């Protein structure tokens, strides 16, 4: 029996030895992105080699002089996480920075701030987009080749991320405003400074206490140094920090030094780009002065007078003290835009040096004291009709304008015009006398128009809908889910009998926004015509806006002479893709 206990003990030990172990779970390995290609070209060299002075141009990157693929690398110094930077990644390799325009959102996950990216740029497009050099795709603008976003899959084939993000290794370059402004003047300066991540110390905001961005489109703010030099900071309405308030006092502002047209635009990555300022809580706002009651209440029937506007004493260039009000006055002059600055105090009375983008009105046609005047910012859609540069005959005429009372050019002013009345005509009141057909869509309906869907995204009742302010609006973008959908839909007019008119013509006003680019918009928003029961043909000669935005532009007069005497239908033909669904607003359709 004792012997057997020994057996038991030894058997147990033996079996225990078999099962003894301290084996931990083998976890899946961390996968770090690793680039397999090596850079052979600096960003500075690449930019220098492919630089052109044209604002818009496209070049294809070739091999290096040694006959090898051109490969660059750089560390990501941007992020689109807050939405202020849009569809772009900026990389910097110590020599220069490059904007990569990629047709994708949430790039900050794939190309993280502080992460190294190696790109075989051979056969990719590089060029200027309104003055900013960028790597991207090729599109057209005004029928000319132009830079646009590169397809994200194509870019991914060329780009390799290398290692995890290391934000500590990101260089932020200290700069001062005069230095940067001076750099605009030389090619070398532009190449060197464009797209760099820069920090301006000891600067203040032009509008402390105001939000970074107001309204539904981008807002321009300025940082000003102690010598008064200022730099434009452009804040997107899509930025998650748009409603945060600009801080008061002096501090440092960091962002990507972008470029548009002929001007720098600082793009913040996030509001953390503002450091060292005072508390950004609201500075005390002066109480709004009471509006003198005798003159008007801002309605069309009872517009505000110029002196009422002056009494409102607007202090912000972006926050209205009175919104969508009618103001009545006389056109007395404009603020010339050619000089060093454009201010109300510098108003030229009369039509000399007349500006296209603004005008000045006063309580009487003979006023010549700028302090008795207000400045009017003219939107592109009204410049033809209102500006003294285009319509010198308007001088001295009475005009009614609808807009927001704000500070403009250093004095009281009216901005964001949406309507006017001049000689009985107005923006919302097209001249429909002797029109064969007209439709404003202002009744929040599509009037007699009908919708013909060729492709309708699931869940959409219609792509087109009527709106009081914006006419017939087409979009296949679902703002709820923030998703673009592919769509194809015509807004078809009722049958129109052109009757006896010898040279009938179509006109309307429209605005296009959020298309991939304006060239794409021209293809995705077309106007078509057909005779009763016939095939649709596209109408040529439509004037489109030169840039995307919410400003309505007149279509110009589109001849329908070919259809004289016939019964026709016209159609606004909207298409979109799942990659990008733009918005098209059409109103004041007239045939006469």
């Amino acid at each position: 029996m004792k012997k057997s206990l020994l057996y038991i003990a030894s058997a147990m030990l033996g079996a225990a030895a078999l099962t003894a172990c301290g084996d931990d779970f083998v976890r899946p390995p961390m996968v770090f992105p690793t680039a397999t290609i090596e850079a052979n070209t600096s960003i500075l060299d690449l930019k220098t080699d492919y630089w052109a002075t044209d604002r818009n141009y496209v070049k294809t990157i070739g091999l290096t002089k040694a006959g090898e693929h051109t490969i660059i690398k750089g560390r990501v110094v941007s992020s689109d996480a807050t939405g202020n930077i849009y569809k772009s990644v900026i990389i910097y390799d110590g020599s220069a920075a490059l904007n990569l325009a990629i047709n994708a959102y949430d790039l900050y996950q794939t190309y993280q701030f502080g992460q190294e990216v190696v790109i075989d740029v051979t056969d990719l497009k590089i060029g200027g987009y309104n003055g900013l050099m960028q790597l991207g795709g090729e599109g057209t603008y005004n029928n000319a080749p132009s830079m646009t976003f590169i397809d994200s899959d194509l870019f991914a084939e060329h780009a390799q991320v290398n290692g995890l993000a290391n934000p500590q290794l990101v260089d932020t370059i200290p700069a001062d405003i005069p230095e940067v402004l001076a750099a605009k003047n030389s090619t070398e300066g532009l190449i060197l400074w464009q797209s760099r991540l820069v920090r301006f110390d000891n600067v203040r905001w032009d509008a402390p206490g105001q939000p970074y961005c107001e309204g539904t489109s981008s807002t321009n703010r300025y940082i000003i140094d102690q010598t008064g030099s200022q730099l434009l900071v452009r804040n997107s309405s899509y930025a998650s920090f748009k409603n945060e308030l600009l801080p008061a006092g002096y501090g440092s502002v960091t962002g990507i030094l972008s470029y548009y047209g002929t001007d720098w635009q600082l793009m913040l990555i996030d509001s953390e780009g503002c450091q060292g300022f005072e508390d950004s809580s609201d500075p005390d706002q002066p109480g709004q002065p009471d509006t003198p009651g005798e003159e008007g209440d801002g309605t069309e029937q009872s517009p505000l007078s110029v002196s009422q506007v002056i009494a409102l004493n607007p202090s912000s260039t972006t926050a209205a003290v009175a919104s969508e009000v009618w103001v009545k006055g006389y056109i007395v002059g404009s603020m010339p835009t050619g000089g060093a600055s454009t201010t109300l105090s510098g108003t030229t009375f009369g039509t000399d040096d007349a500006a296209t983008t603004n005008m000045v009105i006063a309580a009487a046609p003979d006023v010549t004291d700028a302090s008795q005047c207000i400045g009017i910012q003219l939107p592109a859609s009204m410049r033809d009709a209102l500006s003294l540069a285009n319509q010198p005959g308007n001088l001295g005429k009475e005009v009614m304008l609808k807009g927001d009372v704000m500070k403009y050019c250093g004095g009281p002013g009216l901005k964001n015009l949406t309507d006017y009345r001049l000689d009985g005509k107005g923006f919302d009141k097209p001249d429909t006398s002797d029109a064969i057909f007209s439709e404003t869509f202002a009744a929040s309906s599509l009037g007699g128009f009908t919708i013909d869907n060729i492709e309708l995204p699931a869940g959409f009742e219609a792509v087109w809908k009527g709106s009081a302010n914006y006419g017939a609006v087409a979009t296949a973008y679902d703002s709820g889910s923030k998703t673009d959908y592919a769509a194809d839909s015509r807004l078809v007019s009722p049958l129109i009998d052109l009757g006896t008119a010898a040279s009938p013509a179509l006109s309307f006003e429209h605005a296009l926004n959020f298309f991939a680019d304006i060239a794409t918009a021209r293809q995705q928003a077309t106007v078509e015509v057909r005779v009763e029961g016939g095939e649709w043909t596209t109408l040529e000669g439509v004037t489109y806006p030169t840039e995307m935005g919410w400003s309505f532009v007149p279509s110009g007069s589109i001849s329908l002479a070919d259809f004289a005497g016939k019964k026709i239908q016209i159609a606004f033909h909207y298409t979109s893709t799942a990659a990008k669904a733009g918005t098209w607003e059409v109103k004041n359709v007239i045939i006469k």
Partner: protein
Amino acid sequence: MRLKLFLLLLLSAAMSMTAQTATLTGMVVNSNTGSPVNGATVQLRNQSKTADSGLGGDFRIGGILPGTEYVTVTCEGYAAAGFEVNLLPGDNSLGTVRLEPQDFTSDFYSDQDDLVFDDAVFDDEESMAQSVSALNGANDDVFYNNASYNFSPMYYRFRGLDNAYQTVYINGVAMNDLVRGRFNFSSLMGMTSRAFRNKTTSVGLDAAAYGFGDIGGSVNYNTITDTYAPGFNGSVAYTNSNYMLRAMVQYASGMNKHGWAFTLSAIGRYAKEGIVEGTFYNSGGLFLSLEKLLNENNSLTLTAFGGPTQRATGGATLQEAYDLAGSNLYNPFWGYQDGKKRSSRITETYDPTVMLNWLFKKDRVQVNTAVSARWVHYNRSALQYYKANDPNPTYYRYLPSYYEDDQELFDLYSYLWRNDVNTRQIDWDELYRINELNNVQNETLANADKKGSSYILENRTNNQFNFMLNSYLNYNINSVMSLQGGVSLNYTKSMNYKTVRDLLGGEFWLDIDPFSDRDITIAPDNLQNDLDNPNRRVVKGDKFGYNYNIYALRAEAWLQNLIVLPHWNFNYGVKVSYTQFQREGRMRNGRAPENSLGYGDMLTFDNAGLKLGATWKVNGRNYLSAHAEYGTRAPLPDYVYISPRVKNTTIANPESERDLALDLGYAWNYRNFRGSITGYYTAVNNAVERTGFYDESFNTYTNYTLSGVKRVYKGIEVGMEFKASPSVTLTAVGSFARAQYKNNPQGTRSFENGLYPDTTQTVYLKNYFLGSTPQTNMNVGINWAAPYQWFFGINGTWQGNAYVNLAPAYHEALPTLWQQYGTEQELQAKIAELSQQDKLKDAFTLNVSIGKLIYINRKVSLNFNLNINNILNNKDIVTYAYQQGRIDTKNWDRDAYPNRYQYAQGIRIFLNAGIRF
């Protein structure tokens, strides 16, 4: 002295052929069960000659001086038997010696076999869960006996091994199916305590007389008619489990003077509603064994059995659903229709089997030759839907947790779940209403535009036809050596398809893949399940969805040699086999137009195995044994095809699996104390596994095949039995094991809707635990065989260290994870979180049993058993659990697709009354 005896034995063996001496042969069987008794000692009192019975219960003593002798047959656990015989020179036969089992305990337990098998019937296509391994049966091994009955609540598997690693024989014919490797115990129709009572179990790596066995052991059910104890027995049982009532009758005629014998059995099981709400159980079975003794040496036995079973089942689901429903037995697969409960998950099985055995016995040779055919019918119903809301009440959008961010909706759904049965269960009336609406619309639609059912009930069918030939031989060369060997052939045709079971009021079902719909503009062919009959409209009974056959064939031969010496037993054996199989697609699937229709490549595998064993009988009380087995096995067709419902594609380079199994044991056998302790090590190399799951994020059924898998199972098994008094027995058994993955195999993911191409990647599984089987199990019990044939037993079981079956997707290297976890620390932490393996709760159950046997007279006896399992009513025992196969690739939220759990019922009563005469 012992050495001299040994020499003497050898000598007498050598001299046994001389005419001057006598030889005595016979067979020892259990008088209750008819199964052979291995290791009984047969002794000639006057001449001091002894022999041990072999695996077949057979013994032979040679070199006897003729004359009158007194033979005793003794064996542990049986009453001794003695006979006076007059031995003549030459061959003398003692015939069959029936030993009366003294061990009332094991006899009592064997009546409970059905309980174990009822639980074993389990299948879920989303999981790796399989039937429990069932090596229970009359066996002397304390550990195995107790483990079989008492470790079943948590789906214990012997040595961690799947059912496919155990061979189940009927009369020597291996019945494991060639496609899935398993034996479906439900095909025995619940007759395990009657018609299939006679069986021989080979534990672990032990050698068996009927076949080569497998590394998980083997069992041979013997249905040769003359092994049934003649007479009638019948029983009626009540239980509160899957079924409520069971009735069984059996009559065995015994051999008549014309050499005919038959045994007839019948069984019925029934529950209007089982313990799980919304389930039912209808099963009936018949069994016949008919034997004709042709002459002294030859007999023929025809065995035929089959029983249709129809039952509704529950299944594993989310803890959230259990909690909301307030019961761990919540079953999402039923709902009300016209106020009546209806189940969507009905399983129908019917496996009629016929077998003809020819037994040849002469002198030292026994040959058992069999031909058998089996028709396996298996259907399981499920709801299918198209362009409609998911009818499954546990669909994640119907659960409050989906609305965590919206308190109002969260409260609403919580309220509905708790209070509205049509939220908590399937709303059949709503499904019919929607189909009816389609019909109404159809009245005004052109034929081409008509809408079919939005919801149907489909049948998923896996039928088989098996044809088997088998012959095995047992040759006692002399009293020391015996030889066993056999050849077998199995031809299987497996037929797999779906049919429409019920259109639920609709007009037809459109046979396209409902989940390929998004591809309609890009690749319209992708929609088609049957490209040659596109957009087919199917009605009740029509095959649709998929339809494929697998033809498999296996031929096998084995040979082994047993040597029994006074102090040593040796065995060694070898097995060779040839396996081939091939898939035949019956539909040209739109997702794989080139390789779905017609025959795929024929895959062939040559395999071999080697088995060694030795036992050192230190003395009459202590034994040390060691076994080893190494072999290769063909991969299973069910795993090799990466998406068998769609295409012929297999994993790259299908290769045979290589298995190594070792064990080392010590057993002791004293008068009052016996037991054993065994350590084992089993390594399975190059294995293939496949799981399937429905991936909601891609709207597709997804197959995930692992190949080149290495699994290691090691552990200690301890079983002890102590007789405190002649009537009181204490038992203690335990197993302490680790069953783990031991390498990082390749995983192939295949989307059935063809949305993405198949991908193969490394799956990091090394050292993770195999799911489901508890790795630590302990049981202690007391049995009292009280006076007047009363029996009382109580035992407690503790089981722990069981793990959730893991999903490979959580164990891949994730190439985009860094995009959201951008630093090394974050990345490491996230990987650790995602790849964690969840553990199940430990479980304790207390079981009580009471039995009473009443002899009315010498012939008629009554018995009553009452078993109360889980008397503490523990409702928190997870029988098994699996991690859902999909991973949240958007937010990497590990809880996005929570584990699915299945729970054991609480207290379970089994009351049985039987009569025997």
